[in-house]
């Protein structure tokens, strides 16, 4: 194998690259806590006279708490729904039944339809369902993701057939087998579902933009965009808002990095 000494060229490239990748994070953080006038040139590289008052201002200038709670609610709904619905579908796909091929084909072809190709009718459907301007209306399209269905399927497929068979012999009803035998053993799939659903619904902007009219139903990305359009280049509180909006996503990412990556590369490993 290569000796450690030959590693330094790699570090020589990767360290500047890492710094480049981290600069935007640092810059927004510095802008949010610096005491200087951020609209004056030249900007200082380090935060001068750091303070947290921009965060106070962001909190009060706009209903941050409302946006935050709305986002949490939407994400919570989406996560619970996804776990139930996708695990159920994934489990169903471990059986052999007539029409399984067709169902798989439907799922796979739905994967080819990006959300952006559906916004107009999706909006009209939401209107017809009476869900415009509601949190449920925001969350509903997020209730199921096909990639998660396949992740659950793979997870269930990997479990020994004897397990559900034995339970069936014991007369345990099917729904109980799913909930109490199979699902607890698919914990990695559940973790992946939670993380991916969180990231996708938390960051979602276009759909809430279409569906929401009022401030008190807005989610965080929507609120952030609204803050930008109201206050634009007049206050550093915007960047405090940005930092506050990013923190939960980063937190979830660090807590469940492995599951996140595994979920995303599920497609890569197949093909």
């Amino acid at each position, binding site marked *: 194998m290569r000796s450690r000494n030959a590693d330094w060229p790699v570090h020589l490239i990767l360290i500047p690259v890492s710094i480049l990748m981290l600069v935007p994070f640092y810059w927004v953080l510095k802008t949010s806590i610096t005491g200087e006038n951020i609209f004056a040139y030249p900007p200082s590289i380090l935060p001068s006279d750091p303070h*947290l008052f921009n965060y*106070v201002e962001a909190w*009060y200038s706009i209903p941050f708490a409302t946006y935050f709670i709305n986002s949490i609610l939407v994400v919570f709904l989406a996560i619970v729904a996804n776990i139930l619905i996708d695990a159920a579908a994934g489990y169903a796909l471990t059986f052999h039944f007539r029409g399984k091929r067709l169902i798989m084909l439907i799922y796979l072809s739905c994967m080819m339809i990006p959300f952006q190709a559906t916004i107009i009718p999706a909006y009209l459907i939401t209107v017809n369902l009476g869900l415009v301007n509601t949190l449920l209306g925001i969350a509903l399209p997020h209730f199921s993701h096909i990639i998660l269905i396949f992740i659950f399927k793979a997870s269930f497929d990997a479990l020994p057939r004897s397990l559900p068979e034995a339970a069936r012999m014991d007369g345990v009803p099917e729904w109980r087998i799913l909930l109490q035998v199979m699902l607890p053993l698919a914990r990695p799939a559940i973790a992946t579902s939670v993380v991916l659903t969180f990231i996708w619904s938390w960051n979602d902007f276009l759909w809430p933009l279409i569906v929401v009219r009022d401030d008190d139903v807005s989610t965080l990305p929507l609120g952030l965009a609204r803050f930008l359009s109201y206050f634009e280049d007049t206050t550093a509180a915007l960047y405090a808002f940005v930092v506050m909006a990013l923190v939960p996503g980063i937190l979830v990412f660090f807590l469940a990095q492995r599951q996140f990556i595994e979920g995303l590369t599920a497609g890569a490993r197949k093909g």
Partner: protein
Amino acid sequence: MGTIPRQMLINRVTITFAVILALIVGWNAYVAANNDGVLTGQVVDSGGRAVGGAKVTITARTVAHDLEIGSIVSGDDGVFRFEKHGQYNLVLTAEKDGVGKSAPRHIRLYFRNQDFALETPLVLSTGSTNAQGS
């Protein structure tokens, strides 16, 4: 499934949530204990003597505008006290006829109605106005 498995209690997700929850509760408790909106300070003249009867004005400062909220008169010892000021970003000015005017004092708080005591008094002077820190 009787007790919650140990692994579920002591993994980093639960700990993170617990810490966050503790921080939220702790912060809210702190805020609740200190949000009577009591703002106190003292008015002195350029010689350092307490000035009674000076009018101290609170102005709320937001990104969009400044809005005068109210005023109070300092007592004989120069001390003034606002209650339930309701602000998180404000400017104080003091003035008294014949003695002078103070430079505007910009105060930023961490939450609305935070109790706050000025560290240095408001100095009335007739001359130049140097912005003072708080």
